[in-house]
């Protein structure tokens, strides 16, 4: 069985263009020039290369630059042996454009949903030892900035114990940094900045903030956020820089709002359990929100901006704490006046602690 069709051919060895006839013999073919015969070539080695103007261009496996160019109507016995044209690329051509677009949309939505939702149940599965190592790697001894006095430590310990049932797996420290801020870190680490303790008007205020940070620890928010960030980085990695980062930030922001609300709820519950009035925390937020409104009117207390940037503030948070006040309940102060003084002056008393900071962290 043999048949002939006109075609153009490059042998890939030099740039000479050859007018050839294709001679089909079973599953193989020859290319015939006037004085030369090329081949035999196996149809199974033929690959589709590209569409070049009016011609379909075919290549040959393992023959660099070998080309067979067919233009015009190709007879059916030849076209039946040739590989299919490529348009969009493998999967899309197999499924068809519409179906592929729908399939990709669903797959993308599923990937994003998994990345956003899975940290909530993945984070608790991560062993505490990993959490702890990560926390140690990040914080260490905080550059020697942790303050410590016997009486101050005791007051802090009492405060933590009143707010949490398992105070032993928490490591709460006061750092000699003049900023109104507090952070929860992996490994059950909570750091209160001395600036926050100093400006507090009562131990109840510190208790509310501390309980909020303990809430972050207990709800595994830090590990969740870390997993979510890594997942988003992978999933959105394909999108170009700016828009990817924007989407990423918006998604993580909405989750950080949710985490803040959860931590607040945890804080109110802990305060209730410890018989500490939430009014102190409410007034702390009230002061912050007033700063929020008139931040530019020449107040020297710039430190407050630190807390606001990491904890998006709104009047509703203050209202929530106010609402959680139970009328007639016999609240008692979080610390005795003596303990409170010790805690407040702990960093001033501890002369070994280094002061200052070189970072901004939330």
């Amino acid at each position, binding site marked *: 069985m043999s048949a002939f069709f006109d075609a153009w051919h490059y042998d890939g060895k030099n*740039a*000479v263009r050859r007018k050839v006839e294709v001679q089909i013999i079973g599953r193989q073919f020859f290319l015939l020039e006037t004085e030369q015969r090329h081949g035999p070539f196996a149809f199974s080695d033929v690959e589709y290369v590209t569409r070049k103007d009016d011609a379909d261009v075919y290549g040959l496996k393992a023959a660099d630059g070998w080309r067979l160019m067919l233009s015009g109507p190709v007879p059916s016995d030849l076209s039946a042996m040739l590989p299919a044209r490529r348009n969009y690329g493998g999967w899309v051509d197999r499924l068809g454009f519409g179906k592929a*677009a729908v399939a990709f949309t669903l797959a993308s939505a599923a990937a994003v949903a998994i990345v956003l939702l899975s940290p909530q149940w993945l984070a608790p599965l991560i062993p505490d030892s990993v959490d702890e190592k990560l926390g140690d*790697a990040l914080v260490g001894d905080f550059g020697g900035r942790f303050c410590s006095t016997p009486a101050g430590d005791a007051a802090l310990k009492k405060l933590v114990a009143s707010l949490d049932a398992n105070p032993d797996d928490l490591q709460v420290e006061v750092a000699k940094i003049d900023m109104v801020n507090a952070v929860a870190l992996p490994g059950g680490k909570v750091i209160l900045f001395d600036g926050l303790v100093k400006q507090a008007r009562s131990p109840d205020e510190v208790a509310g903030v501390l309980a909020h940070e303990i809430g972050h620890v207990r709800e595994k928010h830090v590990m969740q956020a870390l997993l979510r960030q890594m997942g988003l980085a992978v999933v959105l990695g394909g999108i170009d820089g700016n828009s990817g980062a924007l989407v990423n930030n918006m998604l993580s922001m909405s989750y950080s709002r949710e985490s803040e609300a959860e931590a607040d709820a945890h804080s109110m519950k802990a305060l209730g359990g410890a018989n500490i009035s939430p009014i102190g925390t409410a007034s702390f937020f009230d002061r912050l929100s007033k700063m929020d409104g008139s931040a530019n009117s020449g107040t020297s207390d710039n430190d407050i901006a630190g807390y606001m940037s990491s904890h998006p503030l709104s009047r509703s948070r203050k209202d929530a704490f106010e609402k959680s006040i139970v009328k007639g309940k016999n609240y008692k102060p979080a610390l005795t006046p003596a303990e409170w003084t010790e805690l407040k002056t702990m960093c001033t008393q501890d002369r070994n602690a280094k002061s200052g900071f070189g970072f901004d962290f939330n």
Partner: protein
Amino acid sequence: MNDDLSHRHSAFRFYGSWLEFARIAFPNLLLTIVTLGIYRFWATTREREYLWSKTEFIDERLEWTGKGIELFVGFVMAFLLIGLPLIVIQLISQGLIFRGEAILAGVITLMMFLLLFYLTGVAYFRALRYRLSRTYWRGIRGGSDDPGLQYGLAYMWKSVVGWLPIFLGVPWSMISLWNDRWNAMSFGPHRFSATAEWKPLMKRYLLFYLVPFLLFMGAVVFGISMAASGGTSDALGSTGIAIGAIFAIIAVLSLYIFLPLAALAYYSKYFRLAVGGLRLHNLEFDFRARAPDWILFFLANMAIVICTLGIGYIFMPYRNWKFFIDHMEAYGEINIDDLTQSETVVAKHGEGLLDAFDVGAI
């Protein structure tokens, strides 16, 4: 068989149409969106297949044989080899700052920066190598056996030397690196030879370099003369201030107008000199676009993107390629029999590094 190019209008011709390109670009955009950006590697490949196939050199179209999967694998490699280590290093240096080891953190950050700098140079080189190795003409391709690791070092020191004399060495470093890059490339059996000179570029560069100074000087002189005239009487003073303000606005605007214009004028000269210094065996090249062509091209691009609310951005690959081919010129002759296949190695992965750093090719 010899082709004498001297009688032809131009050896390069582009036959594409933007309507045809739109039929590729819009489905590409849709698929890229629904795959969260992953399809863009296949999208780029389809666009290049089209643009190359619509480009004629002498009497035969070009072929793009790159594959989407190559670009994708390159991107994944860049992410694993550079992206992930960067994230880890950033975490480590943040931890070091926490521990008060700011100097060590600074050293690590500096090393990270140097590594990125080096890899950017390698990426430029490999992008050019990849493109040449995937471009076929008459069954013959280009390429390079140089992996570009040396070029990465040259890129670092030549860039720094270019910046050191208050950025006056930039034209030298740009031209010198262009020559380095192209001298390592080949097409078929022939090595490219790049001998562009940098000295003719200095005048244009100084124009660009001096624009901010001239504008500043002009503003100062004008301000002084205004102040002097304004001082004579109160009535004149207020108009003087008003006119001064208007001129200040004009000065700021012209900084945004004259500076880009001067930059384009410089770049057009750079590209003309760089391409003009290029030879391939008996072929010489020329790029005929002059500064006004570049400025019109740039303004038209801006107008298209703005008037289409950004959608026109997807036509930029088409516009860039058309501009490039329309102004390319080649002289000399090619011996088709001697143009044998390139023996350079073919790298399996695409412009991964380049893609990660988002730099242009030529």
